[in-house]
């Protein structure tokens, strides 16, 4: 079974430029998560989707960050404009559901963003 796929793996941009990250979850997983991981820290949730609905985006900085999951499968996370402090690893995860045995989250390899 294929795992969570993310692209690109690495991205270097100049500040004020836009950037987008793509995620393809495990087939059949209805719940998709985007996390931010700063160096030396654990992941922090940015947004959670149940199918195509964003059900928890309370930690997403909405002035510059946006996300979509139009058909309830793939998802895109965008930053516009990027700031120096956005340099981090952006992780995508998916799970079958949100309760009990279904809620184990499986992570992709992440996109490492460097803003210069």
């Amino acid at each position, binding site marked *: 079974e294929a795992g969570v796929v993310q692209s690109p793996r690495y991205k270097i941009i100049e500040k004020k430029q836009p950037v987008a990250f793509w995620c393809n979850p495990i087939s059949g997983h209805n719940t998709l998560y985007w996390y931010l991981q700063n160096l030396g*820290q*654990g*992941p922090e949730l940015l947004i959670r989707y149940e199918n195509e609905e964003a059900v928890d985006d309370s930690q997403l900085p909405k002035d510059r960050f946006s996300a979509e999951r139009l058909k309830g499968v793939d998802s895109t996370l965008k930053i516009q404009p990027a700031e120096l402090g956005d340099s981090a690893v952006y992780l995508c*995860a998916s*799970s079958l559901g*949100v309760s009990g045995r279904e809620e184990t989250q499986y992570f992709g*390899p*992440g996109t*490492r963003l460097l803003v210069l």
Partner: protein
Amino acid sequence: AQSVAQPEDQVNVAEGNPLTVKCTYSVSGNPYLFWYVQYPNRGLQFLLKYITGDNLVKGSYGFEAEFNKSQTSFHLKKPSALVSDSALYFCAVRDLTGTASKLTFGTGTRLQVTL
């Protein structure tokens, strides 16, 4: 609010010796508890979880963890460490009283296994 503490930034152990990576948690209700491992330039890999039932949970690669409600701990253990176990380990908790499946992660513990 829920929280996780991993009191050790790094744990050093010789190959073949038992290892323990510590985790304590704080939730208002009953917890779901998870351990993940992260290798360099890789995403997090699921190791094991506690939901209900037996306090000793067995997971991938010979790892196990013991849920201790009175001490609010969920320490990760392995009887005999391998050099290949060297990685960054994260403990995570979800409060069952919440409806959102939000995991709170610890800051991670780096495990270094030497020959």
